[in-house]
């Protein structure tokens, strides 16, 4: 029968619950699929209010990372959450937090998106963990996501380093029953006495970096003895297996009825446990590496120059190099038969996502596309949000989408090169995330670009989170120095189309920075305050 302490949680939610139970004082983050639900979960939790836990969204991943580090500096436990590409934004603070070390426990929960369900690349955050030389936890199940998050806080305080918690889409966005433990009290305010380690002047940083390097054998030792890295003996030594994170569940799914005959190491903690792996190499003829994401472990273990074929996985072609794994893919690598006799009937057509009926981005794109007829080929630089869907038919209204904020800055660079007109389309949340600084660049040179800020008062793509500057976008543009006569507000509705087209046309023709703020609340998520 039902266990009263069991909760049905997404992997993300299990991480949030574990954070609450680990006595966290502050969660920081910027929404990004598949990481968003860690913070939306703790925002809904009653205990967050009761304990005055910080759960408000930050402006971007870098500010979130630094805020979390500030809380850790004060001696309290904090967590920062983001999607994999968000860690690129936070990377400066992230890498340096390993040099300074932490005071209160600090866990960076990053959700990778192999198969790019909702992303621009498949980058693997374990590389960042290795780059920063800090411990990485990679749970296989929702229960482990809970347990390892709690463990990560204790580990962080023990080694005085931040700990990276790596999730992947299928773990972050799958539910399972999770047994939760007793909640812990928050840490007391306890700023550090050895404050010089937080002043990364070269003279201090050199010493800190040397001690981080010196610590590495200790981190390996901790991994070696961690209950989260397991050597599971087997009877057939023709093959040994190393399976990490969710990859382990895809392996074991093939052994529900028959026992896995191969000696196997289940990896959930990095740096890799050397002794265990050495033993596997000595016992087995071949080693199959099963890992979700990049071939991180495989690259470390195989001899790339004189490849003797001992280590197999994604680089040898036994597993696909790109995309997510699943138990069928792993079965094939193990030489097992899979059922694959039905294919998708031809009459089934693709159904890509689209902007919602009644969405203001649609009308804005209609206006922009109408102008194409008049002014001919124009380049529209966009970036990341629901408005990226304007790239798809029937709109095909944008020409670029690279990263958050790149709309304004790429338009500026293109204008510098002589492209005219250069138009940027950016959403309100993306504008505050990383569009403001680029707009200042453009203002400083009065670059001939037209910036359309499609303001729907919310962060819609990730489910309608608050934005950092609702109602203050025009004020921010003025503050940056956008000229009053080239700062326009429009409401993208059918009835205003003619008027709006005229405004957009005039501003495109202006040889300097224009900003047009198209304001219309998100049809799906905006709730009247």
């Amino acid at each position: 029968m039902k266990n009263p302490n069991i909760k049905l949680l997404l992997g993300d939610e299990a991480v949030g619950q574990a954070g609450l139970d680990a006595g966290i004082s502050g969660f920081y983050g910027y929404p990004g699929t598949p990481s968003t639900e860690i913070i939306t979960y703790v925002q809904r939790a009653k205990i967050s209010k009761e304990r005055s836990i910080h759960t408000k969204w930050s402006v971007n991943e870098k500010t979130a990372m630094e805020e979390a580090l500030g809380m850790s500096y004060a001696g309290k436990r904090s967590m920062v959450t983001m999607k994999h590409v968000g860690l690129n934004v936070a990377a400066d603070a992230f890498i340096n937090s390993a040099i300074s070390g932490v005071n209160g426990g600090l866990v960076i929960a990053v959700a990778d998106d192999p198969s790019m369900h909702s992303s621009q690349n498949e980058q693997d955050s374990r590389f960042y963990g290795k780059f920063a030389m800090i411990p990485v936890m990679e749970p296989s199940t929702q229960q482990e996501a809970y347990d390892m998050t709690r463990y990560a806080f204790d580990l962080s305080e023990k080694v005085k380093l931040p700990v990276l918690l790596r999730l992947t889409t299928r773990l972050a966005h799958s539910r399972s029953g999770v047994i939760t433990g007793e909640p812990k009290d928050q840490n007391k305010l306890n700023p550090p006495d050895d404050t010089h380690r937080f002043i990364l002047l070269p003279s201090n940083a050199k010493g800190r970096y040397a001690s981080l390097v010196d610590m590495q054998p200790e981190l390996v030792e901790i991994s070696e003895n961690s209950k989260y890295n397991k050597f599971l003996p087997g009877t057939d030594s023709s093959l040994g297996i190393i399976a990490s994170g969710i990859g382990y569940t895809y392996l074991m799914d093939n052994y529900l009825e028959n026992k896995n005959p191969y000696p196997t190491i289940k990896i959930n903690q990095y740096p890799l446990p050397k002794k265990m792996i050495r033993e596997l190499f000595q016992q087995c003829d071949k080693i199959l590496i099963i890992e979700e994401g990049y071939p991180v472990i495989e690259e470390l273990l195989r001899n790339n120059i004189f490849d003797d074929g001992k280590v197999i996985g994604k680089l040898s072609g036994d597993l696909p190099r790109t995309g997510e794994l699943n138990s069928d893919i792993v079965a094939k690598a193990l030489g097992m038969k899979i059922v694959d006799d039905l294919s998708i009937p031809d009459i089934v057509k693709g159904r890509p996502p689209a902007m919602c009926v009644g969405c203001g981005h649609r009308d804005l794109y209609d206006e922009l596309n109408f102008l194409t007829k008049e002014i001919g080929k124009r380049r529209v630089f966009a970036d990341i949000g629901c408005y990226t869907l304007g790239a798809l038919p029937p709109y095909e209204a944008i020409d670029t989408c690279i990263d958050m904020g790149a709309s304004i800055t790429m338009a500026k660079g293109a204008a510098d090169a002589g492209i005219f007109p250069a138009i940027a389309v950016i959403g309100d949340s993306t504008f505050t995330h990383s569009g403001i600084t680029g707009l200042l660049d453009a203002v400083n040179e009065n670059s001939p670009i037209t910036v359309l800020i499609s303001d729907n008062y919310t962060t819609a793509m990730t489910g309608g989170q608050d934005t950092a500057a609702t109602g203050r976008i025009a004020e921010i543009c003025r503050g940056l120095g956008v000229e009053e006569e080239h700062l326009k507000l429009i409401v993208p509705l059918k009835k205003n189309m003619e008027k709006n087209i005229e405004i957009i046309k005039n501003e495109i023709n202006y040889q300097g920075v224009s900003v047009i703020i198209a304001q219309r609340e998100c049809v799906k998520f905006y709730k009247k305050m």
Partner: protein
Amino acid sequence: MQDNIILAGVGGQGILSIAAVLAMGALSRGLYVKQSEVHGMSQRGGAVQSHIRISDKEIQSVLIPKGHANAIISVEPMEALRYVPWLNKEGWLVTNSEPYKIPEYPDLEDLKVELERFSNHIILDAGKLAKKAGNKRAANMVVLGAASPFLSLGEDAIIEGIKTIFSPKGTRMVELNMDAFNYGKEIAIKQVK
């Protein structure tokens, strides 16, 4: 005891509610459950699916291997066919008949022929039955009801799931969704006879 179910539909059709009902139902019986969801970009009117696995033994992969689903439950007929490589030979294909159209949507007669090629199928107008229950949006519970006779997870457990999920929204919502569920179940039983 084991269920491997694929839920299918279009973003916004209530796939996640079906998943939540089944998962809560399973949990209420002390069973193991794993259930995948789709969040983010695909939720904007794209094809969405959820794998849900229920068992009295520990579950490993959250994703169902191909050929191993004992049911596809779909709120949209073309979407039901998108996941047939996952259906096993004895599996049931249960779907709403009402299309959610896109520009290249297939001919409805052709679609029907494809669906009926599966010997174990239930095709029903879930929207109409949901309207009869009080709200067209309850079509998701109608298809769940229509699939319920073919699942290992008992009806009582599913009903408990419905109560758990909808009771925060009031007793009226529980009743409406229960009615939708029952209408779907009745049609399925009739069609099988």
